């Protein structure tokens, strides 16, 4: 047995070393540390960018992807995951990186247009086909017997947008009465059977494991679930009020090994604003700023609705500690 095993082992080991070392050596690498629902968009964008970058007369670039819950990904970057660019779900996750490392300046968000958010989205409801529980707006989520699926706001960026969208609706309906908004939120979370760590996990829980009646989801994630899992199984319900979700991007200056790498990373982020990339974002169900190159049928899918912005909450710098910090409003509500 030994005579046979040895060459086989050697071959496998050599193969593993080649596979691991080969990709690292050849070309400029960019590691994009992103959040869950962007997998499909960045798969396409990475190709678009790599081709475009080479057409500009540069050395080829290899882009690596890492996906997970936005908060967890920020944590990994803080702990040393060597990202050249981060593309996370909300500004406060990148703020957290800036606060805990010297690399990133606190005003990173001014580096790129539109608060460094190349695409936006909003929060909608995904319900089971035919909408059997008759869910039309935020108020219906707390009806008797309705189960709501949303991930944990502590670890998921999408969940924080969900939370603030619901809060904005409750505040409006009650003439700005915070106590009423609090009691609505407490009731809403009493209808949540399970808190996943990330948006994709919550979608899987709802769509594939069949838990719950309504999923609070990124608009792009809801459309994607329809596309991947069958339009006949779910319906999208657009509430009367939601929030303009701005997932921002940032360059990590401390993780650029060479000038070439820095230039490629910078271009990688800037090119997200090009008409071609914006059209790609629209195709992947993100709301784009520049629709000049986007297909008309892609744009027609986005319904008009009233969108509040994070500025109404005083920006993430204020909203993050107040709502989601240790002992913040979410903690107070969830403990009840």
């Amino acid at each position, binding site marked *: 047995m030994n005579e046979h095993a040895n060459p086989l082992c050697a071959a496998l080991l050599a*193969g*593993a070393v080649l*596979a691991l070392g080969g990709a690292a050596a050849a070309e400029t690498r960019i590691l994009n540390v992103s959040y869950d629902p962007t*997998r499909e968009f960045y798969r396409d964008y990475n190709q678009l960018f790599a081709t475009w970058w080479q057409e500009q007369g540069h050395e080829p670039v290899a882009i*690596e992807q890492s996906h997970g819950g936005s908060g967890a990904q920020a944590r*990994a970057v*803080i702990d*040393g995951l060597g990202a050249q660019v981060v593309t996370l779900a909300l500004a406060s996750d990148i703020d957290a990186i800036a606060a805990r490392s010297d690399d990133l300046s606190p005003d990173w968000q001014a580096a790129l247009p539109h608060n460094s958010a190349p695409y936006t989205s909003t929060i909608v409801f995904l319900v089971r086909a035919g909408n059997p529980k008759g869910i039309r707006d935020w108020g219906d989520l707390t009806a008797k017997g309705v189960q709501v699926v949303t991930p944990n706001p502590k670890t998921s960026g999408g969940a924080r947008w969900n939370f603030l969208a619901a809060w904005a609706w409750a505040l409006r309906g009650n003439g700005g009465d915070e106590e009423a908004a609090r009691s609505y939120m407490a009731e809403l979370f009493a209808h949540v059977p399970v808190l996943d760590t990330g948006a994709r996990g919550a979608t*899987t829980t709802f769509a594939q494991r069949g838990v719950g009646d309504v999923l609070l989801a990124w608009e792009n994630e809801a459309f994607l679930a329809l596309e991947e899992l069958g339009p006949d199984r779910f319906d999208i319900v657009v509430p009367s009020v939601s929030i303009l979700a701005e997932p921002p991007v940032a360059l990590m200056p401390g993780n650029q090994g060479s000038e070439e790498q820095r230039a490629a990373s910078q271009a990688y982020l800037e090119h997200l604003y090009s008409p071609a990339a914006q059209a790609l974002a629209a195709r992947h169900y993100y709301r784009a700023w520049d629709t000049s190159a986007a297909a008309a049928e892609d744009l027609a899918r986005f319904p008009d609705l009233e969108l509040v912005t994070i500025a109404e909450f005083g920006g993430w710098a204020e909203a993050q500690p107040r709502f989601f910090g240790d002992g913040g409003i979410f903690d107070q509500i969830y403990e009840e």
Partner: protein
Amino acid sequence: MSGSALASASAAITEPRPWRLLLTLSAVALAALLLLAPIAAVFAEALREGPLTALRSLGAPDAVSAILLTLGIALVAVPVNAAAGIAAAWAIAKFDFRGKAALVTLIDLPFSVSPVVAGLALVLLYGANGLFGGWLAAHELKIVFALPGILLATLFITFPFVARELIPVMVEQGRAEEEAALTLGASGWHMFRTVTLPNIRWALLYGVLLCNARAMGEFGAVAVVSGKIRGQTTTMPIMIEMLYNEYLSVAAFSMAALLAVLALVTLALKSLLEWRHAGLLAATRRH
């Protein structure tokens, strides 16, 4: 006396036939339901779109690199832990020293610590803000979110498997045979090869097989330190979760089926060894 013992023994197995049948059937049904059904479901899902689609998904570059990474990690982790296990079992069985009980407990630590804690401990030590983080960064060394971290996590989790199998066997055998060999003029290495190794080989093989199965299958600790970079730091179990989350069910379950096949091969090897060497095993293994 022996007569009455025999009578009571035969009374014990002369329960009514339907009872015996029922007990046997329920044991078989339970095993099928709890163990066989999930594995069958994995294979059914993998082959849902035909064996070609399943094989093609395993041939994708990211999948190939995950498979090679997992095999590579096991190829390093298993021999290292086999050597460490032999050394630890040797020390515990053949020598007397203070703190022996503490060493035995320490070897068991990975069994009692949750894998996620093991992973986080590595981040605490080697992460950018960890104990050695500054030094590692200054020397451009990467441990967590890179291969060394994955290897360290796997080594930690699989550390006890070989030692745990060897310790009882070696304690049982004592040191008389080795002492005799030494008295007859054998060198240390010669004694180990001709006396110790033949005595422990079945326990050693058994430990190595278990260690290998766990090294390939470990998820929790590795997930914490992997960084989940596609094609770079994704092992097979992490790739399975990733593919599933990307709605690529067939690819996810094909990978899962391959991992199950690797585990089943391990299991089959183990059974084959037990079956072929039942007598020897009974003589050397007592637990």
